């Protein structure tokens, strides 16, 4: 059985790579139709096999941990390529392959007429390969391979329309900011190798309890001692902050919206940005032993959940609203991990993948209909032109706002409850953040909803005549994604959060008994229906509902209200519009300052000091000395005779005295 699982995984992981290479290498020879057939065919294969794998692993309870080949062997160290297939892996495989398949289909419609369409399909298949390598890894090397691989494809796809300066700026920014996170990540891997002697998950996880029990410390700054587990945990967190766009490394994600919308759905909402969440879940056997790391995760996550959501309220670009929403939801997931409710984080990751991909693709559908207009101030009243997009967007929005019984309700409610139950440092602050966040979430997404689909039709008359619902390749995926966005939550809440026998995550996640908030929450859980009924007595529900009500007032009932509020609270509004100044700070201090330093180092130390003073300077000295020496060899006999006499006299003087 091990072998079967291993081979199936091989096919699942490499099928998208075959698709990417065969279309990418022949992108100028191959027809569009054949590209769609190859890539979508292989993605269907991968998704179908993941479903089968899910049966084997989740229902039949098999796991597999096998090596494919040895990548590097040096001294006592060995780095392999290998697959760990357990329940966590399978959940990620299902999520990634499902969303990827939907996005492949959708892209036929969205990218229609773009001359780079074959290249685009090659990229998204390549992305899927890298993402699958990441989630199936059984060691840190392969994890890092997938990690950087998705980063590369994300870079290429944000800059897909490389004619646009903003796209090129966004892609470079995304890569570099991600690299800052990777900097922490690679230090974490180095530390793990140093202290555990291996970077193989199974061995590292087996050694972690011992490492924690012995309280092994290291000295980073002379005289101080830090726990090795905490250092590793924090470094891993820095890695996760880059990919999963946590404050303050979140700045690249809004910029990534310069890429085509299907990419925003696939990479910058459903899959790649959740890699950090997945990674922390995977590392739960390490993270659990570090209180400091958990508190940091909780505080950073909750901060992001609230404050990036607030920025979403003042955006005009429909994609940016959804992008800030992604930042905020990633914050929720992180907060769940910080509260040791890893299962809740994974749960929200999955429901979020469904409803956020849905929202992005629906926004994309609007953008297609609006002829690539993204500013919501020029939209309005679209509901009668695009009924399918309207309804699916509404489903996504309700799910995002955590209105029962939509999928997002179950996962987000679990997170808020978990943070409330948690007792580690920072949990009080975090609870306030995620609670207010539920109001904010409903506000920004329904603001976008009302602005886009309701109210006055603000587009030009010419455009109005051309408005119509998008094609089936676009609406099909919307409808397909709407299904999990409604039902996923109620279906899996019990097996994923409060398993009693049948479990979706099983042993793939490790929680210390004293941190196990979900266990105590499980005692209060009496089924889906009871949870929905109970929700009307809870704060998060009323926060969300009041958010929807406020936006209805502002954008539907009294459209002149927002302008007044802006005027009244100008300072706050400006802070939000400035996004708390992160971008300006980075641009002025880090980018410009860094460039100044680089210039100075080059022009002053390197060119002037080393090269001119020393290198060419020594040449000049040799030259000058030789010129001087030449004066001595004048060729006149009396000069030489004079020198001899002077020398002789000096010699005599020295001898006598």
């Amino acid at each position, binding site marked *: 059985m091990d072998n079967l699982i291993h081979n199936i995984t091989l096919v699942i992981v490499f099928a998208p790579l075959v698709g990417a290479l065969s279309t990418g290498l022949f992108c100028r020879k191959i027809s569009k139709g054949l590209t769609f057939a190859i890539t979508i065919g292989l993605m269907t294969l991968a998704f179908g096999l993941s479903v089968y794998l899910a049966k084997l692993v989740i229902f039949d309870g098999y796991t597999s941990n096998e090596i494919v080949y040895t990548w*590097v062997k040096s001294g006592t160290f060995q780095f392999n390529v290998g697959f760990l297939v357990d329940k966590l892996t399978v959940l990620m495989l299902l999520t990634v392959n499902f969303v990827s398949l939907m996005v492949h289909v959708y892209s036929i419609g969205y990218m229609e007429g773009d001359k780079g369409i074959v290249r685009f399909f090659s990229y998204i298949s390549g992305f899927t390969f890298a993402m699958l390598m990441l989630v199936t890894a059984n060691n840190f090397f392969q994890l890092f*391979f997938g990690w950087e691989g998705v980063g590369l494809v994300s870079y290429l796809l944000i800059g897909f329309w490389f004619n646009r300066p903003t796209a090129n700026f966004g892609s470079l920014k995304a890569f570099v900011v991600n*690299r800052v996170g990777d900097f922490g990540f*690679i230090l974490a891997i180095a530390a793990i190798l*140093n202290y555990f002697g291996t970077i193989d998950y199974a061995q590292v996880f087996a050694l972690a309890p011992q490492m924690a029990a012995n309280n092994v410390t290291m000295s980073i700054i002379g005289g101080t001692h830090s726990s090795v587990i905490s250092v590793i945990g924090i470094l891993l967190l820095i890695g996760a902050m880059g990919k999963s766009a946590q404050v303050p490394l979140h700045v690249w994600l809004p910029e990534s919206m310069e890429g085509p919308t299907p990419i925003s759905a696939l990479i910058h909402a459903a899959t790649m940005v959740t890699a950090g969440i997945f990674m922390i879940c995977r590392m739960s056997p390490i993270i659990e032993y570090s209180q400091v790391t958990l508190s940091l995760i909780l505080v950073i996550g909750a901060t992001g959940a609230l404050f990036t959501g607030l920025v979403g309220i003042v955006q005009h670009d429909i994609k940016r609203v959804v992008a800030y929403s992604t930042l905020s939801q990633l914050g929720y997931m992180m907060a769940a991990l910080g509260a040791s409710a890893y299962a809740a984080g994974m749960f929200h990751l999955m429901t979020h993948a469904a409803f956020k991909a849905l929202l992005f693709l629906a926004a994309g559908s609007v953008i297609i209909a609006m002829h690539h207009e993204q500013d919501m101030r020029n939209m309005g009243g679209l509901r009668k032109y695009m009924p399918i997009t309207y309804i699916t967007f509404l489903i996504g929005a309700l799910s995002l706002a955590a209105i029962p019984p939509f999928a997002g309700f179950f996962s987000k409610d679990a997170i808020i409850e978990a943070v409330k139950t948690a007792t580690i440092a920072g949990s009080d602050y975090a609870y306030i953040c995620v609670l207010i966040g539920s109001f904010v979430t409903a506000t920004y997404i329904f603001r976008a909803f009302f602005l886009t689909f309701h109210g006055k039709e603000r587009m030009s008359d010419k455009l109005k005549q051309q408005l119509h619902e998008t094609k089936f390749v676009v609406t099909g995926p919307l409808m397909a994604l709407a299904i999990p966005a409604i039902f996923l939550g109620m279906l899996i809440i019990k097996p994923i959060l409060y398993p009693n026998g049948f479990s979706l995550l099983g042993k793939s996640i490790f929680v210390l008994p004293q941190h196990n908030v979900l266990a105590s929450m499980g005692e209060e859980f009496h089924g889906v229906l009871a949870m929905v009924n109970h929700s009307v007595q809870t704060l998060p529900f009323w926060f969300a509902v009041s958010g929807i009500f406020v936006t209805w007032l502002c954008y539907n009932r009294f459209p002149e209200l927002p302008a007044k509020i802006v005027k009244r609270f100008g300072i706050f509004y400006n802070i939000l519009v400035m996004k708390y100044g992160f971008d300006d700070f980075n641009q002025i201090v880090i980018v410009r300052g860094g460039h100044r330093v*680089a210039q100075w180092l080059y022009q002053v130390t390197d060119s002037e000091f080393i090269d001119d003073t020393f290198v060419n300077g020594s040449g000049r000295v040799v030259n000058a000395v030789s010129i001087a020496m030449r004066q001595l060899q004048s060729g006149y006999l009396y000069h030489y005779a004079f020198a001899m006499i002077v020398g002789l006299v000096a010699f005599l003087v020295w001898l006598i005295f």
Partner: protein
Amino acid sequence: MLTNAPLLSLLIWVPIVGGALCLLTGGDDNASRARVLALIVSLVALALCVPLYLGFDMNTFKMQFSENIPWIARYGIYYHLGVDGISMPMIILSTFTTFVVVVAAWNAIKTNVSQYMAAFLIMQGMMIGVFASLDSILFYVFWEGMLIPMYLCIGMWGGANRTYASIKFFLYTFLGSALMLVAILYMRYHAGSFGILDFYHLKLSMSEQILIFIAFLFAFAVKVPMWPVHTWLPDAHTEAPAGGSVVLAALMLKMGIYGFLRFSMPIVPDACQHLVWLMIILSLIAIVYIAMVAIAQTDMKRLIAYSSIAHMGFATLGCFMIYLIIAKTGNHRDAYMSLEGSMMQMISHAFSTGGMFFSVGILYDRLHSRMIKDYGGVAHKMPIFAALFMLFAMSNVALPGTSGFVGEFMVVLSAFKASFWVTFFAATTLVLGAIYTLWMYKRVFYGPVASDGVANLRKMYPSEAIVLVLLGFIVIFFGVYPDALLNVFHASVGHLLKISLQTKLV
């Protein structure tokens, strides 16, 4: 059949004789004859590498394919050749690089073709001589002899400021080597032989060791080049023709590292141990400071040259870090990865940087500018070329799956055994490398078509495409399966570690 043939001698002299024959084809009227001849010679040399590789026994650290005959018997100088797992890959790399240089020159070089081809073939023979010599005087002869064809190469086919660059290159590297000769003569006096392997048994006091170390340091640090004796390289690279830049980056810089591995570390290990922080700090300066300087560059070749120096910082770091690791853990096996990572870095750097220099050469041929600001939107006109350049750029920023990642990963991971802060500074390359490489890529390839020149860019010639595809293939091959190369290193690295960590004090 070939087992008894003097394979190393053939590898040295076939290209040199072939180069001389190339000269005989005369002026540019016979240019195509010179091209074909050069191609044949380089293919023969490449073919000679096949028995070299197949006949090589990876399980021993002993010198193989040895040839040892008296050369100047009166002074005890021998024509002694032999290879181990450290030099054998370098020899194959040299033949391969020369082959691609010859192919790349097919259309690019239009004047003095026979001389150009001859220079590179002779240089190849000399470089193989450096890697195969086991007699220090023979080594020295090849080491210095190599400078002449390179000097001519920069001086004749170089850019506008070629005279300055070629003289700077020659004086700099020549001065460095002079002290090495003194050290060799000193050791000859004590060891009674010029044999490099005999030097390994020499007992030396600490002060002797330190003086010898410094003499070698001058020679090798200039070649690598290490900060602060690096300023000749950007000038030499910018002015050299594409082929010259490639040979400089792919091979000549490696000789400095090879020198550390072959001379400094095994002969004066106690001095290495004593001065380890000097070497570590110089390496880290290369990685951090030079990478910062690279960001400020406006000339593509200069930028890649600085990036080369930064990457070589990893190679020197990996070499000398073994002393820190041993001091901490006391276990030889912990130091393996550091040294092997450094050698991996050395070899992989040849392909990615080589590929980038060829690529810039391709652009220069068309627009006659190396300035970043003269480009923009090249990806519109040369999409395949842009994709290949992206591959080399990714290897340069150490993306996993490319060869550039392997060495840096191994060195960074080993560094933690030595010190957290060494790891910290070494790992900054992840960010800085991405900034200077991708920022350049963005300005050159992306954006709207910047000028009429870019709008009229001609597609790649087949010869250019072959070279880049070949290099690209190797970049990916070693990225995906580096163990193929590491297997060659193991035995020799083990031995090198052993002798480099034994005290030689009397």
